[in-house]
C-alpha cells in the first residue's frame, strides 16, 4: 500500500515550502553570498572606500603563520567539544532513561542550560574559575592545584571546552533521550532473558540503534564548535593566553565586529564555511556508512 502523501495540486507543495525557503534564502544564503563578495574587497571601517582586491585577503591569511596555527587550535578544540559533549550527554541520557521517580525533574534540569546564551554561560564559568576570586579556583587551591588560566595555556583550553560543552549537553541530551525512548523495550528484554548484561546490551543493541542520532549529533556538534562558540571565548579567555584559545571563529568575530576589518573577517568566514562544508561532506561520505537506520 502506498503510504506517501501525494499532492495533486501543482503549486501547493511549493507554496507550503515557500516560507521555509524564503527564511533560508534571506537568513542563510544571502549573508553567505555577501560574505563571499566582501572577502574580495578591501574596505575602511565606515565603508567610504571600497576596492576590489581579488584574492589578496586570502593570500594574506595563508601567509600568516598565526592564522595557520589557529587551524590546529580549532581542530583540537572542536574535537574535544564534540567528543566530550556527545559522550557525556549519552551517559546522562542512558541514566535518565532508567530513572523512574522524579524523571521529569531530572530531565528539566538537564535541558535547562540550553536556554542560557553563550556569552552568559561564558561569564558564569569565568566567575566560577576566576584566577583570584573564583569559587572553584578556591577549591582547587585547597587541593593543591595552581589554577590560573590567565597565563596557563592548557587550563585556558580546558576552561573554554568545559564551558562550551556544558552549553551543548542539553541539546545532545534531548536527542539521545528521544532516541533511547524509541528503542523497543522487547528487544532489550529479549537480550536480558538471553543473559546479556547491561553493558553488553548497551553496546550491541542500544548503541547501534542510536547510531543515526549519534551521527546527526556529531555533525551538529562540530558545526556548533566551529561557529557558535565565540561568545564563550569572548567572555572568558578572549583567545589568550598568547593564542592558546584563538579558534578560527573567534578571530572572525574579533576582526569583523570589534576591529571593523570587514574584508579580512569575511575572507576568514569564507574559509571557515568551506572547512565545515568539507567536514560535513566527509562525515556523510565515510561516517554515515556505519550508521544503521
Amino acid at each position, binding site marked *: 500500500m502506498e503510504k506517501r502523501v501525494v499532492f495533486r495540486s501543482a503549486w501547493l507543495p511549493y507554496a507550503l515550502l515557500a516560507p521555509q525557503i524564503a527564511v533560508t534564502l534571506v537568513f542563510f544564503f544571502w549573508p553567505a553570498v555577501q560574505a563571499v563578495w566582501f572577502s574580495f574587497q578591501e574596505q575602511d571601517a565606515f565603508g*567610504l572606500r571600497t576596492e576590489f582586491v581579488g584574492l589578496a585577503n586570502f593570500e594574506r591569511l595563508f601567509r600568516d603563520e598565526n592564522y595557520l596555527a589557529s587551524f590546529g587550535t580549532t581542530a583540537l578544540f572542536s574535537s574535544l567539544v564534540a567528543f566530550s559533549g556527545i559522550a557525556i550527554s549519552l551517559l546522562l541520557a542512558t541514566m535518565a532513561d532508567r530513572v523512574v521517580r522524579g524523571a521529569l525533574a531530572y530531565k528539566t534540569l538537564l535541558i535547562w542550560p540550553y536556554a542560557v546564551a553563550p556569552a552568559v554561560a561564558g561569564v558564569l564559568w569565568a566567575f566560577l574559575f576566576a584566577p583570584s576570586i573564583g569559587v572553584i579556583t578556591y577549591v582547587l587551591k585547597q587541593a593543591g592545584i595552581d589554577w590560573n588560566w590567565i597565563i596557563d595555556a592548557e587550563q585556558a583550553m580546558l576552561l573554554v571546552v568545559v564551558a562550551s560543552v556544558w552549553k551543548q549537553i542539553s541539546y545532545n541530551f534531548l536527542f539521545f533521550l528521544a532516541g533511547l525512548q524509541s528503542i523497543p523495550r522487547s528487544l532489550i528484554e529479549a537480550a536480558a532473558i538471553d543473559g546479556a548484561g547491561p553493558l553488553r546490551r548497551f553496546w550491541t543493541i542500544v548503541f547501534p540503534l542510536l547510531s543515526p542520532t549519534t551521527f546527526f549529533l556529531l555533525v551538529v556538534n562540530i558545526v556548533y564548535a566551529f561557529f557558535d562558540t565565540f561568545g564563550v571565548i569572548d567572555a572568558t579567555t578572549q*583567545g589568550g593566553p598568547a593564542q592558546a584559545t584563538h579558534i578560527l571563529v573567534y578571530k572572525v568575530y574579533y576582526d569583523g565586529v570589534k576591529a571593523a576589518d570587514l574584508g579580512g573577517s569575511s575572507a576568514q568566514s569564507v574559509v571557515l564555511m568551506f572547512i565545515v562544508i568539507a567536514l560535513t561532506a566527509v562525515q556523510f561520505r565515510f561516517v554515515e556508512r556505519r550508521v544503521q537506520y
Partner: protein
Amino acid sequence: MQMKRLALALAAAACFAPAAQAQTEIQWWHSMGGALGERLNGLAGKFNASQKDYKVVAVYKGQYPVSMTAAIAAFRAGNAPHILQVFEVGTATMMAAKGAVVPVAKVMADAKEPFNPKAYLPTVAGYYTDLKGNMLSFPFNSSTVLFYINHDSFRKAGLDPNKPPRTWAEVNAAAEKLKGSGQQCTYTTSWPSWMHIENFSAWHDVPMGTKQNGMGGFDTQFNFNSPLHVRHVAMLGDMAKRGLFTYAGRTNQGDAKFSSGECAMFSGSASATAGIRKAARFEWSANFIPYHDDVKGAPQNSIIGGASLWVMGGKKPVEYRGVAKFLAFLSRPEVQMEWHTGTGYVPITLASYDLTRKSGYYDKNPGADLPVRQLTHKAPTANSKGLRFGNFVQGREVIEEELEAVFSGRKEAKAALDDAVRRGNDILRRFEAANR
C-alpha cells in the same frame, strides 16, 4: 490607546509648540556606564538647563568597541549620532574616515564659537590634534597610568612605604623583600600594552613607531623592539619566572588583585582610584610610574588613555552650532572641575586645573593631581605626545598576545617583540591600503 496617545501628543504640542519648534536635538552616544554615566547625564542636563535652543540627548550604547561598531553601522544606514565617544585606540580609524567625521576645530570655527587650542593641556589635547595643530576630536575623559603600593604590606616586609620604588631596579628589590615576607603576589599590572609598551615608551622618551608614533602619517612603522623595550619585557618575564610578577590579564583585572590586598604593587589606570578607595582595607598610595634610571631623559611624561568626542558628518548647520555650543560648555573651567573631581579623569584645560587647585581640592585629596603632574612632567616630545596607529584595536591585541607568550615563559622577549612588530606592521600596511 492610539487615539489617546495622539490626543495627548496634540495637547502637549499645543502647550509647548513655540519651545519645541525652536529646540534642536543633539544625539550623543557614549560608553559611560554606572556612576560615570550618571555624571555624564548630569553634564547634559546642565547644558540643557543653561539654554533653550538645543537639547543634548545622551544615550548609553555599550562599551567602547560596541558603541563604535553601532555608530559605524548607523553611519552606513545614514543615521549616525551627532557626537560619538570613541576610545583612544580608535582615533586613527575615526580620523581616516573623511566625510564621516568633522574635525572639532572646523565645527568650532564654522559656528564662530570662541576656541583656543592652547587652553587645553598639551598632553591631553595633543593626542587628538593633527600636526598642523587642528583639534580633531574633543578630549572628554582622559586618565593615565599610575603606580600603586600597599603600605601595610610594605611595612610588614620592613620597607618604608613613604619611599615608594621610583625605578624598576627598586621595584625588583622591593618585590624580593615582599616575597620574603610571605606576600603571595608582589607586583601586577592592568592593561599590559598600554602600561608596558605605550606609556613605557613615552616615559622613557623613545618612540614605539616611526613618524612621531603615527601622528605624522599612516605610513608609520612600529619599532618597539628596541634594546630598551626588549630589556624591559625580558625583565618582566624574569620577574614572572621568579614569582615576583603575577600576570592578571589584558584589561583591568589587575585592579581587583591590588584592591583585595593580593598584590602589593600595581600599575593601573588613574581611574582605578575610585574602586580602590572603596574596596581597599589597607593604607595605600598612588605614585609616579617607575623608570629605568640609566635611560637618558627618563622620566619624560606619560600619555593618556580614555576617550574623546567625535563630531559626525552629514548634519545640518544649525545642529553643528548646537554641537559647538555644547563643546564650549564642556570646556568651561567650572564644568571641567566638576567632571574631574567627580570622576577622577584629568581636567582638560589649564584653567580648570588651576581652578581645582585654588579650590583646595588637591590639599584635601592628596595625590588627586598626580595624573596631571605626571602627564605634564616635561613638555611633550615627538615620542610622548600620543599615538595614532591604524586599527590599533588589532595592534594592541597582537602586542598583548606576544607579551603573554613572554610572561608564560614560552617565548624570549626579543623574539616576541620582533614578532609583535612584524605582525603589527602588517596591520598598519593594511590600514594604509584601505585608507589611501
